[in-house]
């Protein structure tokens, strides 16, 4: 990937929904290649620059995590609306992942286990939070592609830095992500 000052920079947005930020940490594992990256891309909404909402059309959006509450859904829809290519990054975005372990457990059991049968002193009042400001929990954790159309999937928990790097390079070079070779997904 050689720098080309003539070319318009690719606009990239990233977000973490019901994820642990592990995918973003893995992204940072591209280490010094990030210096090379910023000659080719410009970040829009992302934890990397702390822009809170997408404010211009983006070429690609990376989404970590699935959707566990209403805010996740709104964010995901914002990404879909504004990104030409939408990528599910990591296992939680692709399948719901660890947070989806709650799927199938009735909501009343979940709330009482977390907020009421607890010895946690900060939750001492044993109330189920119901402030209208708080996003509403969904009936289950949804993988992103069940809510909006997703164009590419980068598996892994987390996907390793080389996979993320390779995907970025391909997008910058205008290549397809469909034929990423097995070596990038091999996790044993």
């Amino acid at each position, binding site marked *: 990937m050689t720098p080309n000052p003539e070319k318009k920079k690719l606009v990239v947005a990233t977000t973490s929904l019901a994820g642990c930020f592990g995918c973003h940490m893995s992204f940072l594992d591209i280490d010094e290649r990030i210096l090379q990256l910023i000659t080719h891309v410009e970040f829009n909404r992302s934890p990397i620059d702390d822009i809170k909402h997408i404010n211009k059309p983006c070429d690609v959006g990376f989404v970590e995590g699935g959707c566990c509450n209403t805010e996740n859904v709104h964010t995901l829809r914002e990404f879909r609306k504004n990104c030409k290519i939408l990528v599910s990054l990591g296992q939680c975005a692709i399948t719901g992942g660890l947070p989806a372990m709650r799927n199938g457990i009735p909501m009343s059991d979940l709330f009482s286990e977390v907020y009421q049968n607890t010895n946690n002193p900060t939750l001492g009042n044993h109330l189920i939070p119901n402030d209208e400001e708080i996003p509403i929990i969904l*009936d289950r954790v949804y993988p992103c592609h069940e809510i909006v159309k997703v164009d590419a999937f980068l598996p892994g928990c987390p996907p390793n830095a080389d996979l993320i790097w390779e995907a970025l390079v391909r997008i910058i070079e205008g290549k397809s992500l469909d034929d990423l070779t097995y070596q990038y997904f091999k996790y044993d």
Partner: protein
Amino acid sequence: MKKSVSEIAQMHQNKQTQLLAILHDIQEQERFISDEVLHILSDELDVPLVELEGVRSFYHFFSSQHRGRYTVYMNTSATSEMSGAFEVMQAFEKHSGIEFGQTTSDFKIGLYKTSCIGLCDQEPAAIINNLVFTQLTASRVKEIVEAMKAGKDLKVLLRQGEGQNKNPLIGAEIFNNIRQKGPLFFNEFEPGSALKKAMDLGSLDVIESIKKSNLRGRGGAGFPTGQKWGFCRAADANRRYVICNIDEGEPGTFKDRVLLTENPYLVFEGMVVAGYAIESKRGIVYLRGEYAYLKNYLEEVLNQMRQGHLLGKKILGTRFSFDIQIKLGAGAYICGEESALIESAEGKRGQPRNRPPFPVVSGYLNKPTVVNNPETFGCAAKIVLNGPEWFRKMGTAASSGVKLFSVAGDCDRPGIYELEWGMSVADLLKLCGAKDAYAVQVGGPSGVLISERQFARKLAYEDLGTGGAITIFNKTRDLLSILHNHMEFFNNETCGFCVPCRAGNAILLKKLEKIMIGNGTSNDLSEIKAWGQTVKLASRCGLGQTSPNPLLTALQNFSDEIASKVRHDIDYISQFNMDFAIEESVKVAGRSPNLRVEEVED
């Protein structure tokens, strides 16, 4: 008289290999298996508690919740649905005041669904406390529910069955429907004749003879039987086992049931011949829980054989001893897979083993074991009796002999057909009076769904190899509902060990449901193909390796019809519904479903 758990365990020598029999006795007496019971068993049998919990939860006929004094197991197979199961189930629910999946609050009646019970030619059928009711109607259901409420013996409501089903030891309302007899299964057989011949030949020549006959396994996979016996005999061990696989769980198959009802002597003698050939002393008949009503009758047949010196010690006055015990399954299609069957017979969860080693090397209790279908044993006995040439004269060059076909669905004469291999599907359809066949499921859901264009294909290993299930659907049937029934079957019956099979089949089913409500796109069809390939490729046993077949073969053979059920103008439809998704949590947290604030930001 009620027995204590310890007494029941003792009746079965406190052995783990008898665990299913123990749990059957407890379930039958108590109508459920409590945690407390498992604690006692854990001590008595010296088996860890978690393992017992695993077994209890694995089998459909065991339950931690009360299933009612009368437990109705209603068959949900496609042919049952086609014959009016829906009205029958509604009648059960209406008259007993509960839904399927529930037990009445007085614990009298429990209504539960179950996968194919091997009665596809006389649906809708249900098993109630081991009594089999066939061709149910809403009015009969009313009678049955009233009798259950009154605590009566349901036997008086049974109509008389046909053939040996009338035998008091069976007493089942079942019709054999043998439509076409052939030279092998349903004619005179003199018990002992095949065994005498085998002993004249000597054990090695018996195996040679089976090899020469080209007999291949009739359970579906078609492995050469002589070779299997040869491998087992060659395996070095002090003990070997012969197992007869009467799990017959593939929806659409019921020929083993009829064979065992009408000619059990032939099947069991085939087992003894196998025992003689591989130098084994012990045989096990693994009888699916759904066929428990046959157990007493089959035990009596075994007793008769013992009295005739065809079983037990010093058979026919020689030094050869061989005996057979019957083990009852408890509702699990996967236990038809031979290594899962072996696990189940050992008193464990019926989960397939890794193979190799194959059962012929390491099977029951890790000893070399031959597992065969009852029809295979029947063939083997007759081959020994009449010679391999006699057998090879029938059928085609690559598929010798005859085959039992279980024919059901839209035809005038559903039932059992004994036919030489090589008949075309079209000829069979003519024979059974299927005038307007639109789709034919060959080999059950794990086989292939073919359309008229392929009706010229031949029923033979070299073309359409099959365990013998032929289910016929005419034009009035909804293709997607049939596929749904079959995919639901695999979702219910996966043992859950492999992710591709456990999760992949759930994904396939959801995709199908998406299409059924009009939300499918052509992308969903491509995804079904891709997921189907993954499930087939990455699953451990035959269940996962064949479970996408209903969808994949339908996509191939009914491509136009299926393409017409999806949208081609857009490539993605989301089924996500925010109002539905927040309904429950809003209620539990006691807040308003207020989405407005966030909507504005969208």
